[in-house]
């Protein structure tokens, strides 16, 4: 089971999606990107809910979509399962009937369909909620029923559209864990659309980052988390990112300033380091192989347990400090101090 898709969707002149996507059997690929990046459009195109302008969709060697060849398999004839952001369970049907809907629509006899649906409700831990209507279910329960409804038909391609976005934080944690378990047991291809980096990191084998309808980065979650390639990705994974030109262990940054690194490189590079690696001092710190440069505090944001400082350089950086340090150093907007960064904390990779 393999998905090979080349998706080109144009909407007037304002929006265009251009995405090549290959998914191996049993693999989960996350489409990660900001709102309006084209993630959902890509998912709808895979589901056949949105026509391709150009390109093709091929699943297990069967062409599902190819406008050039005049092929377009209707949504209801595609071997897919879709979980939507706000579950879209049918309000007039019970949880069991919702899950049985797919098999029934595909011609499975009523009793068999209800049996399958019961099994799946049990697998998502909702056997005792079979007779409930969707409005009598919590958000997390409804989303689990939606997952059962999508998976009961044994789809070869599972499409998840922000499946956790509508849930509150604690429910999200539970459902994410459950989703991970089901995806691990699922033999087909899975495409997950999300704007939450944590969903992508936990659930996906590979991440494709979309911005403005184009792929800006792809790789394993660890790769994306460690080596962001755009400011958007860097912000998602919480790293400082700079572009520059390396010459040995010195990188001249494009926005001004220079950093010393522990590993040597040559030519155009990206450098990344966590905000927690940036030390702050009232005076210029002495000695040791460190990067030091004067900065001015631009803004302070309270995060859980730490305070994130936006510092103007060059280079501009984010730094995480403790509330105690904020008090000791008398940090307010406009304060001037020195930033320090160990060369070993800086990751360098080709641009």
């Amino acid at each position, binding site marked *: 089971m393999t998905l090979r898709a080349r998706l080109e969707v144009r909407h007037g002149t304002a929006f265009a999606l251009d995405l090549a996507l290959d998914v191996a059997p049993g693999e989960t690929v996350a489409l990660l990107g900001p709102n309006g990046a084209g993630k959902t459009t890509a998912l709808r195109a895979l589901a056949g809910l949105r026509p391709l302008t150009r390109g093709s969709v091929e699943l297990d060697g069967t062409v599902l979509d190819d406008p050039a060849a005049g092929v377009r398999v209707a949504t209801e*004839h595609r071997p897919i*399962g879709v979980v939507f952001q706000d579950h879209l369970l*049918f309000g007039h049907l019970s949880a069991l009937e919702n899950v049985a*809907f797919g098999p029934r*629509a595909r011609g499975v006899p009523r009793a068999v369909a209800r049996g399958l649906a019961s099994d799946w409700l049990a697998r998502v831990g909702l056997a005792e909620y079979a007779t409930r209507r969707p409005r009598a279910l919590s958000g997390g329960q409804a989303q689990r029923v939606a997952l059962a*409804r999508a998976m009961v*038909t044994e789809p070869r391609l599972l499409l998840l559209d922000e499946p956790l976005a509508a849930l509150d934080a604690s429910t999200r944690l539970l459902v994410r864990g459950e989703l991970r378990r089901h995806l691990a047991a699922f033999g087909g291809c899975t495409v997950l659309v999300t704007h939450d980096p944590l969903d992508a990191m936990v659930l996906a084998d590979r991440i494709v980052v979309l911005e403005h309808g184009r792929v800006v980065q792809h790789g394993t979650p660890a790769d994306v988390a460690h080596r962001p390639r755009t400011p958007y990705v860097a912000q998602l994974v919480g790293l400082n990112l700079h572009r520059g030109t390396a010459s040995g262990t010195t990188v001249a940054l494009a926005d001004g300033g220079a950093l010393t690194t522990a590993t040597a490189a040559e030519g155009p590079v990206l450098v990344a380091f966590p905000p927690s690696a940036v030390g702050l001092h009232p005076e210029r710190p002495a000695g040791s192989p460190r990067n030091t440069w004067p900065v001015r505090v631009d803004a302070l944001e309270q995060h859980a347990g730490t305070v994130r400082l936006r510092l103007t350089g060059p280079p501009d950086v984010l730094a995480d400090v403790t509330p105690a340090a904020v008090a000791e150093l008398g940090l307010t907007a406009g304060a001037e101090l020195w930033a320090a960064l160990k060369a070993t904390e800086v990751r360098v990779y080709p641009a």
Partner: protein
Amino acid sequence: MARRPPALLVVPAALGLAFLTLPLAGLLLRTPWAGLPARLAEPAVLEALRLSLLCASLATVLCLLTGVPLAWLLARAEFPGRRLVRALVTVPLVLPPVVGGVALLLVFGRRGVLGQYLQDWFGVSLPFTTAGVVVAEAFVAMPFLVIAVEGALRGADRRYEEAAATLGASRWLTFRRVTLPMVAPGVAAGTVLCWARALGEFGATITFAGNFPGETRTMPLAVYLALETDPPAATVLSVLLLVVSVAVLVSLRERWLGAAP
């Protein structure tokens, strides 16, 4: 804190309410209550009532069978001239019913555009028959149903239909199992309006189907006729129609329309 509504709105509103309710009150005031049971039991009255209920119900069924699919096409399908079709559907709504009756005669009459073939091929003649009453009532009442159902369809979230498609449901199955249950309140509201309109139909009926006791003389026709010969009888028949209409409206309102707050 609730502010006092301005008198400039309250006074005309009260006048409007009085205007709408006083005639009904007058009807009830002048009803010869003492002789009511005897008058209601008259065969002619029962005949007209039976015919009215039968024809209005058959006309409503006819409207449901064709009007709901028509509303679906208007709301969901893309085809050239859809705006024109919607305009055509609403024409009977604004057309004087008597004109509708004339138009029906010209089409379904013995020499009509279609009527001559119905007569020649099937030996069927609609004008001046009970079937003609049903046709006349359906013609006048169908727009009420189509407009109500189309509105409900437009208001329904189409993503549920997409979800059904991803589960393998054909468009017909989706319509039957997902769309129709979603718009059921709208269909019910449309059905009530349609039935009420059919029940009260006068102009198109008398023009197209005539006024034959037991065959085409529905309640409204009987009321009109009685007014000339036996005014108290007209009052009794009117009260009867009023009661039937209100009863249906109330019963369906509580069950289906979810009653506005």
